[in-house]
């Protein structure tokens, strides 16, 4: 190679432990050799100082299911949620403050724990920042479901199913097992339910949710429709305003 390599090419060289076609050029070019040495030093600095100081935060911030499941409350509230669900579905369509997908392919309800029992949250409802919530969906057809949320920091949380690498199969209206406790930080949190005929991967849904609503409070509140998903993927969304 006659021309000097770019930083990106030097990164490839470093990642390959020096086993690239750049070696002859680097051996004969003092400027590139000096740059490579500088990059090595910076890499050592990362390993010595940056990695130990930041790795715990990186792991914590990327952990799936940042919102904590609350099985105990789920069990206690299940009858209340079921009663509310029955009321919703018997009238044939959701009430005005109930937010579902356009076209009615999928409806999502969020129930918030309150001293007097679970209550369905309307879109934009103000809730305690550490409220316990659970979810209920109504698909038009059997489908594969993911429920996720996005906050103002752009953090996407996996809510349902809380574990495993596949979405949950849902065939009829009902409350979802488990639930979540909000993270205690004030601000908007938008919840998305996505249900498709073919199973989507969590990264697909996570990326779509982040692209649609991640990046500040205004974007979370605006709640754009998820894009980049298969045409048959039904979706529903609801906004919670967490208050301290």
């Amino acid at each position, binding site marked *: 190679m006659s021309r000097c390599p770019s930083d*990106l090419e030097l990164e490839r060289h470093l990642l390959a432990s020096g086993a690239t076609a750049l070696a002859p050029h680097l051996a004969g070019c003092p400027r590139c050799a000096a740059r490579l040495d500088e990059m090595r030093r910076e890499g050592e*600095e990362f390993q010595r100082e940056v990695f130990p100081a*930041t*790795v715990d*935060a990186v792991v914590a911030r990327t952990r799936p299911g940042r919102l904590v499941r609350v099985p105990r409350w789920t069990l206690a509230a299940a009858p209340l949620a079921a009663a509310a669900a029955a009321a919703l579905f018997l009238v044939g369509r959701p009430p005005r403050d109930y937010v579902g997908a356009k076209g009615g392919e999928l409806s999502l309800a969020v129930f918030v724990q309150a001293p007097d029992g679970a209550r369905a949250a309307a879109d934009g409802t103000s809730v305690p920042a550490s409220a316990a919530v659970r979810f209920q969906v109504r698909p038009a057809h059997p489908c594969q479901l993911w429920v996720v949320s996005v906050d103002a920091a752009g953090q996407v949380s996996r809510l349902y199913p809380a574990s495993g*690498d596949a979405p949950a199969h849902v065939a009829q209206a009902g409350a979802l097992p488990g639930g979540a406790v909000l993270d205690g930080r004030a601000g908007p949190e938008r919840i998305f339910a996505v249900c498709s005929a073919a199973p989507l991967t969590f*990264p697909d849904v996570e990326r779509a949710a982040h692209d649609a609503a991640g990046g500040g409070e205004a974007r979370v509140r605006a709640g754009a429709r998820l894009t980049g998903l298969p045409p048959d993927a039904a979706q529903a969304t609801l906004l919670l305003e967490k208050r301290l």
Partner: protein
Amino acid sequence: MEAGTASEHGERVARLYREFGPAVYRRCLRLLRDRDAARDATQEVFVRLVRDIGKLADRETALPWIYRVATNHCLNLRRAARRHRDEPLDGGLDVAPAARDAFPERRLAREVLARFDVQTQAIAVGVLVDGMEHEELAGALGISRKTVHRKLARFLDSARTLLGGRE
């Protein structure tokens, strides 16, 4: 993000962070010229990368993607710093030797950079600071070579106009 226990997730993320973190840190250091800012930016960039953790599996394709995410994030930080007038990150960018003849004034380069969108900034930095070939830069930024050429030409025209107005 794949399934698994919290500890499996943590081990996987930590391993990837140790492997790719240096490239992110170097990129941030190159653009921000501030160790503390680069450390914070590295953390932020890596959190974004882990959202699409599958892309980190293939080293060959992962590196250009990492470069793109880190570049966009750091250029956004520079823009934000300039907007708020605290400008702690504006320590200057080193213009690549091959670009000095075509564009001699670094300070002017920085001022002109701030007038453009992040993608154009990334193109200008890639060519003028990093010395990247148009094709390589197009691959790294996920855009066409034609777009690189067009946006760079527009950037240089503006720079020359500004330079001419000062002479």
